[in-house]
């Protein structure tokens, strides 16, 4: 086949010059006794890999049943104590006698007056309002004081922490599942699974990437908050929309990037390179970051719009 042909990567025709050259590549036969050698190794391996069975263990069924009953009773006791302590039983009209009442019914003494020690302790206890520190900040109307803004941030952080932990647990689970599947696939293909060191190195890489993404998110939030603080300090009032809009825009940008990534994945390598070149540098960088994050298995979506908002009522908790 001539090299001047336009399709250099096309099939190699039988009988062509290149095919004749390739056919000169002779293969020697297997050496004599190959099968016997393999069989000998296989049999030796079978004998070595089957150690004698260990002796049977004595049945522990009786102890296991007793252990389960003990755990059940203890759990019931803990739940009942918790229900009594939280007042749940009173709500259901189930009378719960105090220890004093029980003692009085046994001894016949009057339990109405509390013991002197308890009374003294109660007197010494400071008033709840004094012990609670500064009064909780109420957010009334738009956020226009630094205290109200700090309270709004506190509530947002509260919800954000919960969601981050939830999302992180989900991602961890996904990473574990993928590693397990990859190991299983390698085993099925007869390939050695990764060593403990290799797996640890991979997990460390994922953790580093996650820390980097967390840092990026924290920086972004800090910058946005600093800007809001500046606005409030200069006398501007922030509305619910002012606080939520950036979060929504983040979310929209994230969804848009996901869609772009999906389209890029469907392209051939050449098309993908050309499409990436056409993008503005910031957008390209963001896409590549997103792609790397996905590959590391730690997709860190920006926090979705938070429900914690400055509300006119003081009980506006998320």
């Amino acid at each position, binding site marked *: *086949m001539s*090299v001047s042909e336009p399709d*250099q990567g096309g099939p190699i025709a039988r009988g062509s010059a290149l095919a004749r*050259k390739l056919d000169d*590549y*002779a*293969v020697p036969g297997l*050496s004599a006794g190959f099968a016997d050698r393999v069989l000998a190794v*296989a049999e030796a391996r079978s004998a070595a890999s089957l150690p004698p069975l260990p002796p049977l263990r004595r049945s522990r069924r009786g102890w296991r049943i007793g252990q389960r009953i003990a755990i059940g009773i203890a759990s019931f006791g803990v739940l009942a104590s918790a229900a009594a302590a939280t007042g749940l039983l009173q709500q259901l009209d189930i009378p719960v006698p105090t220890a004093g009442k029980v003692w009085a019914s046994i001894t016949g003494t009057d339990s109405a007056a509390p013991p002197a020690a308890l009374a003294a302790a109660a007197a010494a206890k400071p008033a709840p309002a004094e012990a609670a520190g500064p009064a909780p900040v109420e957010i009334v109307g738009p956020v226009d004081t630094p205290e109200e803004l700090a309270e709004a941030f506190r509530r947002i952080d509260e919800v954000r922490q919960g969601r981050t932990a939830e999302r992180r647990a989900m991602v961890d689970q996904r990473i574990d599942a993928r590693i397990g599947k990859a190991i299983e696939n390698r085993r099925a293909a007869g390939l050695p699974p990764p060593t403990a060191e290799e797996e640890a190195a991979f997990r460390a890489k994922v953790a580093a990437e996650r820390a980097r993404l967390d840092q990026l998110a924290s920086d972004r939030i800090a910058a946005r908050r600093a800007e809001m603080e500046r606005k409030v300090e200069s006398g501007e009032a922030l509305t619910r929309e002012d606080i939520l809009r950036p979060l929504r825009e983040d979310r929209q940008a994230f969804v848009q990037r996901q869609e772009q990534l999906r389209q890029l994945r469907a392209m051939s390598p050449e098309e993908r390179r050309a499409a990436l070149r056409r993008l503005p540098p910031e957008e390209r960088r963001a896409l590549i970051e997103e792609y790397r994050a996905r590959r590391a298995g730690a997709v860190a979506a920006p926090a979705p719009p938070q429900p914690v908002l400055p509300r006119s009522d003081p009980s506006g908790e998320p």
Partner: protein
Amino acid sequence: MNPSLEPSTIATHPAGSGDDAALAARLAARDAAALREVIACHAAALHRVAYRMTGDAHEAEDIVQEAVLRLWDQAPKIAARHPVGSQAAGVLRLGGWLQRVVTNLAIDRLRRTRRLSDGEVPDSADEAPLADTLIEAGERDSRARALVLALPERQRAAIVLTYYEELPNAEAAGAMDMNIKAFESLLHRARAALRQAFASQGDAP
């Protein structure tokens, strides 16, 4: 032409007949005769792939032996996943499984060798008798071998599987754990590189 030069497919065993599931069950039961049957059926074809990948007969035998022993070790699991008489048994192809293992082992070894020898491809000693015709054949053989061995490992595997073993692209892609599109792209690059190397040898018409 030497009979071993004849290109042939590894899938000499009828696919989908369920025979391989029965064979796997016998291997799982540690039946040495079943292992001998596997060797008789597949070893020559596997050796061709391993040899054309590595260019070294001893290395190729080692690779085939390791692949067969892995099948021996994995047989209980394979048999459990493809019980005889089930639908899964019909799709089991031990030849394909072995071929994937051989291809991966060969690529792994080549990479290791490349790391150790800094890119030099080991050349085997010429043990042929010094007869003119054999020398000439040996020269032709070594030039053909150099042409194939000059390719990067994965491109080489693509050529060995599709040209020499005449596997359909889908099966060759399976043997290399690749999707079909990626494999076709690799094969395209491999053929182009081969043609370029052939042209640079000055043999192209």
